[in-house]
């Protein structure tokens, strides 16, 4: 693999596709669709190549040399602005065990969402162009190791998402799109502020011995790189690290979404077209927790240790609160949206434990939530396409009418409930094992187990109201799944069950890095490591 810039390819391949599509005529709808399909399929192939060449024992996290598939060169260099010194920003990509599962997830979900986009019926050219741009933004976030670059990708994803909801969405699409946009932008400003603050607080030493300010995430994790008077430097007795951490956390928490910043999600989901919901739930939500693990945690281990109880608390609130609100929903899609809030709570809880089991569980849960919730939104899409309603009480007895569909629904619902034999169980169990082992958050963990019960409650109740009982006469001519829908649901079901039976396939990818991260979090930015400088 040496020399071949595979990460650049996997990231910018969609942009290439977008350019191709822009050259096509509006009427060439099939060509547009197949171009997108081929591009996302190629992305999956590249992801598999990545996995095949992946070194399971390389840690990454804070150590540049153990990152894999690194691409690094000077991107922006401005010298001679007197007070700024040299501005030096790298194009720096690489993956480790934290990002590899997300890269796989992004490739997979983009491909599935492309198939799901097949019945988008107006302005296809614009839709698929934006779709591909979104794909690049997501992939870029997960492979970027330079904060500036990370931020660019983070923002890049915002723009196409806004239009995809705002143009191809449901009746209240403008409201939902604006809300999504402003809310995320609001968070981005915090991230931006902290990024700039960090830039001026830490330097990296170049090969020629000069010190320059840096956006390099890995350099920012090294407590000895901080200047003595930097605003966010641990060496500065009046530093603002605590406030910066909160700001950064809010920026990421909006994306997760964490209570109380979650209300954009139900609106965005309800209004977004099915494939965009799939992307939103499958990939975008993970960017929040990924950002925390990649940036907040290792750059601020000191604050992270102080705040772990609070993170666990919000995890618990997400789990319970999300589940209760889901229980009260009457709209199928909104219910799934709130179940996402609940399930992402497990990620927070696992992360908060700062244990290998908990963090492994959290990342695994990110992946599993991606596949399971993607499947749930596809399922909503299937029935919405046919009936143009999502009211749970409008249905009834669909199991007799659509048996194959009901089979997949059962798989997805029980996966969401955390049934053993499916991937969600392993990740939730690991989260609980990790979190329960930490005495300070044990009570919160015990309270969180209530989520298992409530999850079964709202899922099975929904299953019953939509699929069981006598068939609602209105729907006696509904057709069961068609080929395209099988093509989306079967791969996801297989992955969900495969990872439930053989979770090591995924856990082994992340384990080395998670160990390294957890170890790092417990031992760095302590009084000794900082004064030792």
């Amino acid at each position, binding site marked *: 693999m040496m020399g071949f810039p595979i990460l650049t390819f996997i990231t910018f391949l969609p942009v290439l596709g977008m350019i191709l599509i822009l050259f096509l005529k509006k009427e060439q709808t099939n060509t547009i669709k197949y171009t997108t399909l081929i591009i996302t399929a190629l992305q999956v192939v590249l992801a598999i190549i990545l996995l095949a060449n992946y070194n399971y024992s390389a840690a990454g996290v804070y150590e540049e040399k153990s990152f894999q598939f690194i691409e690094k060169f000077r991107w922006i260099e401005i010298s001679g602005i007197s007070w700024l010194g040299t501005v030096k920003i790298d194009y720096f990509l690489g993956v480790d065990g934290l990002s590899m599962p997300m890269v796989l997830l992004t490739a997979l979900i983009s491909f599935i969402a492309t198939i799901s986009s097949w019945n988008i019926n107006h302005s296809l050219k614009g839709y698929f162009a934006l779709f591909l741009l979104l794909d690049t933004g997501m992939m870029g976030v997960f492979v970027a190791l330079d904060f500036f670059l990370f931020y660019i990708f983070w923002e890049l994803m915002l*723009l196409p998402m806004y*239009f995809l909801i705002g143009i191809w969405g449901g009746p209240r699409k403008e409201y939902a799109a604006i809300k999504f*946009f402003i809310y995320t932008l609001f968070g981005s400003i915090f991230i931006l502020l902290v990024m700039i603050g960090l830039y*001026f607080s830490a330097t990296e030493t170049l090969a020629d011995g000069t010190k320059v300010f840096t956006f390099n995430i890995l350099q920012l994790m090294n407590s000895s790189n901080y200047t003595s008077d930097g605003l966010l430097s641990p060496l500065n007795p009046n530093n603002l690290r605590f406030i910066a951490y909160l700001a950064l956390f809010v920026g990421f928490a909006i994306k997760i979404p964490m209570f109380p910043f979650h209300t954009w999600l139900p609106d965005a989901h309800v209004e977004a077209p099915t494939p965009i919901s799939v992307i939103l739930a499958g990939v975008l939500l993970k960017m929040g927790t990924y950002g925390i693990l990649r940036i907040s945690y290792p750059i601020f281990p000191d604050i992270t240790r102080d705040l772990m109880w609070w993170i666990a608390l919000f995890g618990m609130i997400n789990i319970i609160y999300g589940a209760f609100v889901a*229980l009260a929903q009457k709209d199928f899609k909104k219910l799934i949206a709130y179940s996402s809030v609940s399930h992402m709570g497990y990620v927070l809880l696992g992360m908060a434990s700062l244990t290998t089991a908990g963090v*492994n569980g959290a990342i695994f849960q990110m992946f599993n939530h991606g596949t399971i919730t993607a499947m749930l939104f596809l399922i909503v899409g299937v029935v919405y396409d046919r009936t143009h309603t999502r009211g749970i009480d409008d249905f009834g007895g669909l199991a007799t009418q659509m048996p194959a569909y009901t089979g997949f629904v059962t798989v997805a619902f029980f996966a969401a409930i955390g049934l*053993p034999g499916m991937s969600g169980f392993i990740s939730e169990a690991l989260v609980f*094992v990790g979190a329960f082992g930490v005495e300070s958050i044990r009570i919160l963990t015990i309270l969180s187990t209530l989520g298992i019960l409530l999850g079964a409650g709202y899922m099975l109740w929904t299953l019953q109201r939509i699929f*069981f009982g006598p068939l609602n006469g209105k729907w006696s001519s509904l057709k069961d799944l068609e080929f395209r829908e099988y093509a989306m649901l079967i791969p996801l079901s297989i992955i969900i069950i495969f990872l439930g039976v053989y979770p090591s396939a995924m856990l082994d990818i992340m384990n080395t890095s998670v160990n390294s991260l957890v170890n790092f979090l417990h031992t760095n930015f302590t009084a000794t490591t900082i004064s030792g400088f």
Partner: protein
Amino acid sequence: MTESLFTILSIIILFLPLLGFAVVLLLGKRLPKLYLFEIAVISITFLLSVIVMYFKLAYSIDRDIIASFNWITIGAAPLSGVLNIELGIKIDNVTVIMLFVVNLISMLVHIFSIEYMRGDIRYNRYFAYLGLFTFSMLGIVVTHNLLMMYIYWELVGLSSYLLIGHWFEKKSAADAAKKAFIVNRIGDIGMFIGILILFTQYKTFTFDKIFYQISQGNIPFNSEAWLTATGILIFMGAVGKSAQFPLHVWLPDAMEGPTPVSALIHAATMVAAGVFLVTRVFVMLTADAMLVIAVVGAFTSLVAATIALTQNDIKKVLAYSTVSQLGYMIMSLGVGAYVFAFFHLVTHAFFKACLFLGSGSVIHAMHHEQDIRNMGGLRKKLPLTYATFLMSTIAISGIPLTSGFLSKDGILAGTLAFGKLTGHWLIPIIGFTVAAMTAFYMFRLVILTFHGKPRDHHKYDHAHESSWVMVAPLVVLAALSIFIWYTPNPLSPDAGWFMSSWVKTPVTVVPENTRFEFMQSAVQGGESHGEIVHSPLYTETMHWAHYPAMIMSIVLAGFGILLAFTLYQWKKINADKIADRIKPLYNFSLNKWYLDEAYDATAISGTISLAKILSWFDNKIVDGAVNGSAWLGRFVSKISGLFDTYVIDGFVNFTAFFSGFIGFALRKIHTGKVQTYLVFVVFAVIILLLFFKPF
């Protein structure tokens, strides 16, 4: 037979039904005869389990086979150490007996269902689900660790859900399925927390490793209270699955499933999984935990028996009788009569499966009539069903020469000894009361169903004995209710191989000061396969209890039967009049202690209300705040826009520019022109650079 052969055979036994499930589920729609594959699979599984049982009990009775592999490995950081999560099997005597029982009943139910379910719209699917259930149940039986136990535990929950809801077009069936799953989950949460405690302490899920640690004095969080709590939490799993009070409410509703399913899952095997779980963790139960278990079991058996007295649905009577008998087993474990609990599990599995299948035969003959008030006189129409049903009824009532007598008598003797040793006399009192009630309501059921004159002539006239496919399983199961399979001496279970050599009370591992004094035991026969030798006091007390318990149980059962005949056969006393005289009590029993109503009024409506309140809160308050701040932003931007246009208008250029910039920016965002955003980012970066690093 070598160990590896044992292991391989057990794994084949475990996975064959899963194969049956997968094949029949995926291809069943195309190939209508595919259910035969499932039946072939279960028959092979049964034969293999007979072989395994024979070789285990005949040749390596004192040697357990354990095989395991690492499933998940995480950790390695110096801080956490390595966590290995193992999957594995443990084949001991209890396991092979359970393999035999589960597979036998499963096979008989499969065969019975061929006829019973004929013409069902999801015929193949039904058999596929039976395969899934058998796989999950066998998993519970063979596992050597708690996590796998929990995994299969949930999987039997799933198969139970699917089978109860087999006729999901009926709302009541779908309701019952959902209720069963959710009520079970309540217990499972307790069990899960218990497992978490053990894992946190010992970094393993494996039974033997945990027990070894406890025996070395390493107890959870260094506290005996936690050890007790852990035992009770794990027991909560059994409270759900084995339908103990207060979570028993799902089981009677589960009768909405097809009757063979009730026989297999909700009478013989799955509901016994809870009892099996408690036998697995028996050695780590402290005295306090055992007392809790005994009380829950005793109370459950009493509650269920009082309800069974007045039910009119043939399956409901049997369901409550199941709950009551499960309570017996749990109580028996609580009082330390480990062997009798397991013995009763086995004997009960056979006669209760027979009763349920028999009721299925009746229901089938009566064209889905389940109300015993509309039956009567069926003995002439269904002679074989009647004979087997009667045989099993005699067994469950605890009449000598039956298996039920042997196991029940042992349990009662155990409670009596427990009462004498600890002073908790209420437990034996409840035990004996329930014995009388059991005999009464079971014979009431037999008399109202089979004796007397038919009360619904139309249905009676059309009734006819089922074909041999349905009758043969009944005969096999009824035959297994006879004492001879278990002991040569019909009055003493101890003389039998079952009690004397196959199943032994394991040595408790809890610290001495937390055991019951009478459980203080010496170990005989080596460290790993030690057999408990009870203290002389306990042995003596059991001897003392043996004959009084036997006599009392026979007398009480006889009394119950006599009363049933007096009321319903000879009608010397008018049952309705008595019911009228004690109307409140009668209604209390008929309405199942109003527990469902109580749960509806409290837990369920409470949860729904809370959900609605939180949803309102989310919509109005949390989202309201978001929309409010958006409104505020728009307002400010409008004001500054106006300010810009009318007041400033060239006043101070910088101020005008600045507020105009804000107004412009916010307005633009609100109107959706987002393309300009990246430009702003660049501006913002420059401005912020200026802020952070002034010249």
